[in-house]
């Protein structure tokens, strides 16, 4: 069938594109990480996926930025290698805000690499005895080189694991579709009493459970990297675990009857009931608690700012590919169940 080919094609595409497309150039860290106001300081910028030597040093502009209008620009930019560049800054004698210290962002504008940013790169402490003459507003950040190419965003904290977006998130989309299909077949079974509908419902539930477990595992791997621990009792982790418990209970319920027909009927009823309680579990309860997930407070999914256009090109095909793959597995499992029932003489 055409959709099976499509599923295989989309998944191969999602794996190849998701794994091979490079990240945008970014700044890994700046050293030293603290300075005093009024000081002349030389900083080293360490890049990731950068190609600094591709452009002459005088065309590279570097800022330490406080906000849209207040920034200091570097002079004396020296290229050390493709991934390191040093620059000297004359920090003004007063801080842009009257606090003991401020955090400044580092911005590098490169004609070839484009612009890269490191939030809170360096801490500047106030020094009341300083007598520098430079100001914060002399060289605002402007005329940046926005490079349009095929690359994924460079994000601090997650770095290369941003690729997990194409494998972790589609699991939940697929899970919901599988459970939805299972509920539809359970409703049909209650109306028709046709054992084939019950087998389809079982097949879809099993595949949904599989996606849930895979989503949990990929999520735990990601959490291990980004949050420092595989399991941190995040509300979504807990609710997912509960959702999986509901469906494990479904399988226990099926097997606790002597007559298969009775088990099928009550399991279908429970399936409809369980799916309806899954919705508050996944969409209402997480809103009441803080979560480590992106777009956490008040929203069950992540926000639009978490994806850029290149990511969308991989993300949406991956979702479709995994949903079709799930349907494919469910179909095979359905056939397997049918043969089992025929051999046992139930149907």
């Amino acid at each position, binding site marked *: 069938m055409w959709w099976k080919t499509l599923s295989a094609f989309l998944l191969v595409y999602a794996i190849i594109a998701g794994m091979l497309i490079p990240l945008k150039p970014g700044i890994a860290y700046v050293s030293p990480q603290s300075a005093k106001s009024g000081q002349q300081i030389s900083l080293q910028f360490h890049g990731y996926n950068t190609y600094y030597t591709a452009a002459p040093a005088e065309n590279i502009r570097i800022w330490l930025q406080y906000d849209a209008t207040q920034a200091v620009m570097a002079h004396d930019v020296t290229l050390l290698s493709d991934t390191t560049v040093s620059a000297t800054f004359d920090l003004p004698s007063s801080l842009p805000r009257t606090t003991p210290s401020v955090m400044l962002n580092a911005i590098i504008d490169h004609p070839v690499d484009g612009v890269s940013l490191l939030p809170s790169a360096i801490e500047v402490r106030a020094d009341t005895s300083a007598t520098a003459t430079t100001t914060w507003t002399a060289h605002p950040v402007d005329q940046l080189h926005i490079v349009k190419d095929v690359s994924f965003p460079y994000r601090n904290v997650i770095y290369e694991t941003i690729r997990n977006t194409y494998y972790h998130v589609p699991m939940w989309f697929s899970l919901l579709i599988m459970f939805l299909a299972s509920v539809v077949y359970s409703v049909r079974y209650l109306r028709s009493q046709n054992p084939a509908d019950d087998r389809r419902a079982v097949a879809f539930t099993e595949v949904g459970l599989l996606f849930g477990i895979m989503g949990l595992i990929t999520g735990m791997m990601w959490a291990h990297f980004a949050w420092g621990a595989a399991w941190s009792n995040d509300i979504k982790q807990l609710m997912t675990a509960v959702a999986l418990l509901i469906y494990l209970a479904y399988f226990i319920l099926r097997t606790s009857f002597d007559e298969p027909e009775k088990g099928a009927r009550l399991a279908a009823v429970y399936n409809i009931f*369980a799916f309806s309680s899954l919705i508050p579990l996944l969409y209402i309860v997480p809103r009441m608690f803080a979560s480590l997930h992106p777009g956490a407070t008040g929203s069950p999914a992540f926000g639009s700012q978490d994806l850029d256009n290149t990511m969308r090109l991989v993300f949406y095909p991956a979702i479709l590919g995994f949903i079709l793959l799930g349907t494919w597995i469910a179909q095979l499992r359905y056939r397997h169940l049918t043969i089992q029932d025929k051999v046992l003489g139930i149907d």
Partner: protein
Amino acid sequence: MTSDPSSLTQTVLPLAFGKIFQKLMQSLQLFFVLLRKEFVIEFRQRYAISGIVLYVFSMVFVVYIASIKVQPQVWNILFWLIILFASINAVVKSFVQESGSRQLYYYQLINPTVLILSKIVYNTVLLLVLSILSYGAYSLVAGNPVKDLQLFGLVILLASVGFGIAFTFIASIAAKANNSATLMAILSFPVILPILLTLVRLSAIALRLIQDTAYKHDIVNLLAIDVILLTLTFLLFPFIWKD
């Protein structure tokens, strides 16, 4: 009263409405008969209700022995755990206590919707009484940190309704299986969790453990869950009860 007998609208419509009204009244009458039956059975087999009450009191007593001074946070969680397990034990018997042949008798006579409604209402009342009793006993031994009694009363009422609906439905499924007590716990725990979490949160507000002026959202959520569960129960129970 003078009316034109040839007019269609004046004779047929009241007749149709009258029929629906009659049917509704019959259902209502049946509902009260069934509800009365539940109370009568409970009253005659006093061991069930006294068992549950004793269960609650022993749980409360365990709390008392284990820790004399209970912090409000712990008080809140322990209270809801006591209510949860007492409710499961109270409701699980509602379908098991009547024999299979009597169920068959009901099956021939009664509309299933009326039957499940009477069980839900009965269980809700039972759980409400049980919760109030537990609250009294619990605050006697473990202190009473409730600051907003009005809200706390509302939470207990909402809890009884939510638990009443969910547990009655789950009990009707579990009663059909061989290992109904185990199944009851397995099936109801995940389903009840959203309700329970919201309840704990609301009662924490009543205890002034957390400040939240927008708790009306939570109440609306809870009511929405109740409505969903009730609708599902009405739709699905006819498929459960026939054998």
